[in-house]
């Protein structure tokens, strides 16, 4: 080791270059992978619903007859019958809930047995909500027609909540029959059922918490339907929906969106981040490797005579190879030590809040092993060339 380090002292700048390059590369690669994993984790999250086969269609009316409550009430029922009559449609509900909207409606609630007020998403739904979401009411019962008050201005009295919310509020105790009120203690609703899975990304980390009620999500301002179709039927149903509903009433305009499209939109920025980061990582590793090849080649061609002399003095080819590999290993290791510091410094610079993203140690470990390997692979071609230098070179003057 001693002679190697002494030899390196003559080329400080060159090795400093590799050290800095390796350090920055490690910092970028680990942080980029960390961000990719973060985005992927969000995308792999399951909503719990049959996303691929869900369609949302909403309308906004402009015809004056929509001001009549009774007109809207019967129209929504007619609409749902019309939608169900389209071949391929399995179930339909009138609800403002749209999976992967990344928002929706929510409220602040209170219940006995839980000390604080809590926030949860709230969606009113009529029709076949759980059939549409392809979900069983795991405990308790589903909504029935009589759960919906006849008068439109009377609040609903029952609710079906997600398992995650029940766990948060009452632990493993039976949630059925418990009463949830609004933040001021008004509009009590009795829990009549629990669904096992629910996830719709939302602010304040309430993505898993939901209250469904058998209420009206529609009024004179419009309505929205969520429907599930048989696998493969999305396209044909989409093409028939609007004409069918226009035939029911044409005093309105429609907005149609498949849940798959909605999910795509929701994750579009994340996909760009993943693609960009992946591209940067690949190109960066390639470039750093090339840089090591270049600088080592330079070192070899500059030291051709010394190599010849060493060979003439009895060093084997393996000795020369070992020399360059050891040299590179030392430089790479120094770069990696600096790189670990740089990794955490960059991580610190990238997160706006300290609590946000953390750098898992195993990522740094994988990064170190990878860069060691790249260092060796990149050193091999010039080092092999060095090993072929003939001892006779030493005897020549240039």
């Amino acid at each position, binding site marked *: 080791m001693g002679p190697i380090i002494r030899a390196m002292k003559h080329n400080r*700048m*060159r090795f400093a*270059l590799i050290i*800095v*390059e390796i350090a*920055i*590369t490690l*910092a*970028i690669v680990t*942080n*980029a992978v960390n*961000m990719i994993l973060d*985005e992927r984790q969000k995308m792999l999250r399951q909503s719990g619903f049959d996303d691929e086969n869900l369609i949302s269609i909403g309308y*906004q009316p*402009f015809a004056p007859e929509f001001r009549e409550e009774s007109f809207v009430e019967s129209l929504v029922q007619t609409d749902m019958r019309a939608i169900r009559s389209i071949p391929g449609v399995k179930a339909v509900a009138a609800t403002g809930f749209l999976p992967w909207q990344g928002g929706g409606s929510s409220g602040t609630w209170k219940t006995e047995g839980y000390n604080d007020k809590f926030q949860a998403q709230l969606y009113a739904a009529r029709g076949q909500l759980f059939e549409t979401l392809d979900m069983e009411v795991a405990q308790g019962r589903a909504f029935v027609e009589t759960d919906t008050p006849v008068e439109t201005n009377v609040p609903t009295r029952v609710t079906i909540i997600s398992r995650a919310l029940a766990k948060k509020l009452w632990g493993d105790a039976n949630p059925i029959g418990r009463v949830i009120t609004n933040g001021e203690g008004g509009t009590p609703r009795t829990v009549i059922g629990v669904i096992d899975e629910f996830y719709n990304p939302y602010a304040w980390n309430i993505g898993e918490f939901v209250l469904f009620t058998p209420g009206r999500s529609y009024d004179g301002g419009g309505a929205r339907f969520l429907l599930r179709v048989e696998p493969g039927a999305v396209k044909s149903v989409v093409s028939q929906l609007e004409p069918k509903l226009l035939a029911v009433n044409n005093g309105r*305009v429609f907005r149609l969106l498949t849940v798959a499209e909605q999910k795509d*939109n929701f994750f*579009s*920025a*994340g*996909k*760009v*981040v993943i693609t*960009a*980061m992946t591209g*940067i990582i690949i*190109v*960066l590793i390639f*470039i*750093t490797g*090339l*840089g090591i090849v*270049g*600088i080592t*080649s*330079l070192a070899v*061609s*500059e030291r051709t005579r010394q190599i010849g002399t060493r060979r003439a003095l009895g060093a084997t080819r393996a000795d020369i190879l070992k020399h360059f590999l050891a040299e590179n290993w030392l430089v790479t290791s120094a770069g990696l030590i600096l790189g670990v510091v740089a990794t955490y410094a*960059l991580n610190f*610079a*990238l*997160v*706006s809040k300290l609590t*946000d993203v953390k750098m898992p140690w195993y990522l740094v470990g994988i990064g170190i092993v990878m860069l060691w390997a790249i260092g060796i692979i990149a050193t091999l071609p010039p080092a092999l060339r060095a090993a072929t230098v003939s001892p006779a070179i030493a005897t020549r003057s*240039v």
Partner: protein
Amino acid sequence: MLSYNVKIAIKSLRRNPILTSLLIGAIALGICVSTTFIAVRHIFEKDPLPGKSQTLFNVRLDNWDPQRAWNAEDPKSLPTQITYRDMRELMKSNLPTRQTGTYRSRFFVHPDPKVARPYAENVRLVFTDFFPMFDFKFRYGGPWDKAADAKPEQVIVIGHQTNQKLFAGANSVGRTVRLEDRNYKVVGVLEPLRPAVLFYDMTQGGIGQLPEEIFMPFNFTPVLELQTFGNSDGWKGFDGDGYAAFLNSETVWIQFWAELPTPQKQAAYRDFVNNYVRDQKKLGRFQRPLHTEVTAMPDLIKELSSLPPAVRSLSIVSVLFLVVCSLNLVGLLLGKFLARVPEVSVRRALGASRLQVFWQHVVECELVGIAGGVIGLTLSIGLLKLIAKAIPNGEVIRLDTEMVLVSLFLSLVAGLVAGVYPSWRVCSVAPAMQLKVQ
């Protein structure tokens, strides 16, 4: 001298086309990546109204629940909008040069049935000051007058797209548009407008939101009993029934802007706002600690923007990427220049000064930098187009002149970073030594 150096540099670069394209390629790659991701960030963070935005102030008042802050987790938070009644009171001040309350609503447009079916369109309610405050450019006509604000008169300003859709792009000033059950006279048509950030309404994060296509006098709000199509947040029930109770409630749904050109006016206006809240406290409202914010537009955008943090991260990472590309060139250039030591030593022996040799090589590096920069810039235009396509409402993502300059500057810096050390090494060669070896 420069032209001579450039000539020599080109000659030297031509001698080894493979190495030269490697050098240019590395810079191009670094510039392409860094330009692209700095540009994405720049588009969303740059000042939307340079020179003007510092005089435009958004007003916020903490009228929230005495028990609970606006954001329950942050006791210092306050609502991003104000109530209708507070807006009415603030409007009585004559300190601002201009001022407007504003919000987004939604109307059905009923075009000539021969042209199109009725459709819903976002409509922004504003006072006429809104247009000059936010520097709206008119293609035809202009804003309505103050009299139309007060009455209110049935007048509207329409956007470029609506003018295309309803009037095939003709000068439609004086023609009428039917919204719901009334006809409105067009007084102005705007130039096409697509800001990256909806700077006059940040209540929903401002990113990816299109400006409204129709603008209507604010005072139609009580006349038509309009509802907001934006955020509306309340914490307290209404006193009484009907629309009047809603207008009189603690529900916040209006953005309020004042133009305050001088620091004196800004200070005086802050006092005015605080005194207003103190007066209201005497009436039993505003029971939380006195907290008002009069925020300049650029600061408000920073505070409320919904730009994903990854955009900032990508821009930082991409600059580091450029640094690595540039460091790589140091090694390559070192090899290239040192191979030329014999030639340089002859020049030195013939009287070229160290500085001259140094500059000659720096110029060569800068040529590589500029060539790489131009190629990188071209590539990044393509990359930005791909990104714009992949994101909903992403068409605002593109290069502006400022970014082109930044990018060229970066390529010069990259060339310099890569070239200084090798140039210095080659120029510090002693002439005699080299001649001896020869």
